[in-house]
């Protein structure tokens, strides 16, 4: 039957562990992770300095591990393998991996950026949004014991939603406020999780 012949004539799946991707017209460009050799031959993009920095940090982490391992106190009783062995091992491995990766990145190798339903790979990176979210989260962490979880998380919610493009700040704040109070009531009162409520909520919900 011609259909079977067609199927037999198609390229055989081969490869160590992952079959060659047999793609119909792809919906998104390269949704499948490319084979390792395909990544190597990709067009050389400008060297990724961010990744170089991270690889170097990894290398330094390895060095820190090895040095730190040497400072771990060994209790006298330990005879063979003490608390220093594994840190030395991990540290050495980290140095090797970090070094190899840094060299690779210097040569222009780049890993495929992680995809996602809401990620637009062509878009310009919005550092502003990232920065606002980071600051909002930090502020939330600092305020949580001061004004209670619901209020501080509402502020964070509002800031994050605003930075991601919601219209106005009032609506997210209200939404965040309602959700956080409901969540707080459910989790703290009904389920007994510890979350500071802040002065108002603690007073309003009198029961222990």
């Amino acid at each position, binding site marked *: 039957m011609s259909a079977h012949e067609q199927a037999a004539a198609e390229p055989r799946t081969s490869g160590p562990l992952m079959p060659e991707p047999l793609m119909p017209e792809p919906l998104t460009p390269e949704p499948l992770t490319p084979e390792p*050799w395909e990544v190597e031959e990709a067009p050389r993009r400008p060297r990724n300095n961010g990744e170089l920095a991270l690889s170097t940090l990894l290398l330094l982490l390895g060095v820190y591990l090895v040095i730190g391992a040497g400072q771990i106190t060994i209790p006298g009783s330990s005879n063979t393998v003490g608390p220093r062995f594994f840190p030395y091992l991990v540290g050495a491995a980290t140095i090797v991996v970090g070094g190899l990766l840094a060299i690779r990145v210097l040569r222009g190798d780049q890993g495929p950026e992680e995809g996602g*339903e809401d990620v637009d790979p062509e878009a310009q990176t919005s550092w502003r949004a990232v920065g606002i*979210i980071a600051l909002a989260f930090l502020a939330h962490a600092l305020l949580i014991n001061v004004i209670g979880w619901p209020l501080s998380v509402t502020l964070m919610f509002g800031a994050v939603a605003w930075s991601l493009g919601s219209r106005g700040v009032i609506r997210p704040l209200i939404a965040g406020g309602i959700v956080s109070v409901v969540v707080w009531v459910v989790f703290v009162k009904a389920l007994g999780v510890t979350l500071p409520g802040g002065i108002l909520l603690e007073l309003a919900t009198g029961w222990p």
Partner: protein
Amino acid sequence: MEAFGQLMGGFADAVTPLNLLFALIGTLLGTAVGVLPGIGPAMTVALLLPITYVLEPTGAFIMFAGIYYGGMYGGSTTSILLNTPGESSSIMTALEGNLMAKAGRGAAALGTAAIGSFVAGTIGTLLLALVAPAVVTLAVAIGPADYFALALLAFVAVSTVLGASPLRGLASLCIGLFLGLVGTDLLTGQQRFTFGVPQLADGIDVVVVAVALFAVGEALHVASRLRHGPVEVMSSSGSFMTREDLRRSWKPWLRGTAFGFPFGALPAGGAEIPTFLSYATERRLAKHDSFGKGAIEGVAGPEAANNAAAAGVLVPLLTLGLPTSATAAILLAAFQGYGIQPGPTLLTTESSLVWTLIASLFIGNTMLLVLNLPLVGVWVKLLKIPRPYLYAGILMFASLGSYAVNADPLDLVLLLVIGLLGFAMRRFGWPVAPAVIGLILGPVAETNLRRALAISDGDLSALVSSPFSVVVLLVAVLAVVGPPVLRRFRQREAVAA
């Protein structure tokens, strides 16, 4: 068969009204969170973990079973209806599923996914019930050296097998191993890498790291490159599965299950490979070339593989305490949070808990089939949540989850720092799963390594003394050196040709 009797006992425990309620809540929550775009099964489990803190173990694990399977069901709905699929093990479903939805056959796609998941989940859980006791009897013969070899294999497999860049996977693993080292050494009581900060003396909580890497990292990554414009959710209407669809689906369901379960059970990183294989196989076996236009086999097979792998992952987790995927690592952390250490003794010491858990998997699976299809309208509304609110909400629950662990704001700062790391990792293509596995398996590997060497008085050959460990270590070595050698081989072939 003793196992059958114990399973029946598990069912008896699981069908009490309270436990059924837990199962229902778990499946609903798991599906709802699993539907949300940007949230894969690992993150679903991590985010919903705090809910279970306050329940006693049986109820908590029943809810977990529901969340675990529910997350996978939710993910299928998203991958079929949303035009921009993300989570790696649902990419295969999306290939044909999206095409079917576009052609107005969304309901049939959802139907075959749901029924296929049910079939695979049931068979997979049945296999779990049968295989687990058998593995346990074998596992008792395994010593610390063998455990160390298995842990090493798991490290290597999860780093090198997934994704395009094994070296980056190893980098992620190293980060995880480092984070696992922070804290107090169990065997000697010495503090390691705690920077003098007292809260770090207990180590860094797995939940904090998982939520940070998955939820916060994802949120930051999305924020950096948010896809603007309206969310394209395709219609889920249209006729349900016809007899023809059923005829075309049932074999892919079974084949998908056959692929999924073994791969899930092996330290091979979870569901990505079996869904790949299932898709490729269905495509090759399809008698008519509807692939590329919306072939139902392309949805049926991968979905079944996905769910069967989820059941398979539970085999090494429950019998050996060995997590083979990021989700399994978080489940392991949940067990440990209750002071329960999965391993060969689990089936004897916590027999009723384990069998109740397995029975709840069956029940949850059935609930998911019954509930999901009528509730599609609700899930579609969830898909349409405006992204700013969605990610703000994710961060809110991330904050809840991590703060609830220790009631310490330091955990939130740690969450942010590790979240920024997770963002960087996503940007540079460093896979996140190896870090989670390194974090939770690192201490296990170390303990077993030191035990093995203590027994042999420092003789390193103890690590390769038993045939089991030799074989496992060889496989691990092959996994690392195999691909680059093969690559060089191919390049030479290509040049010669």
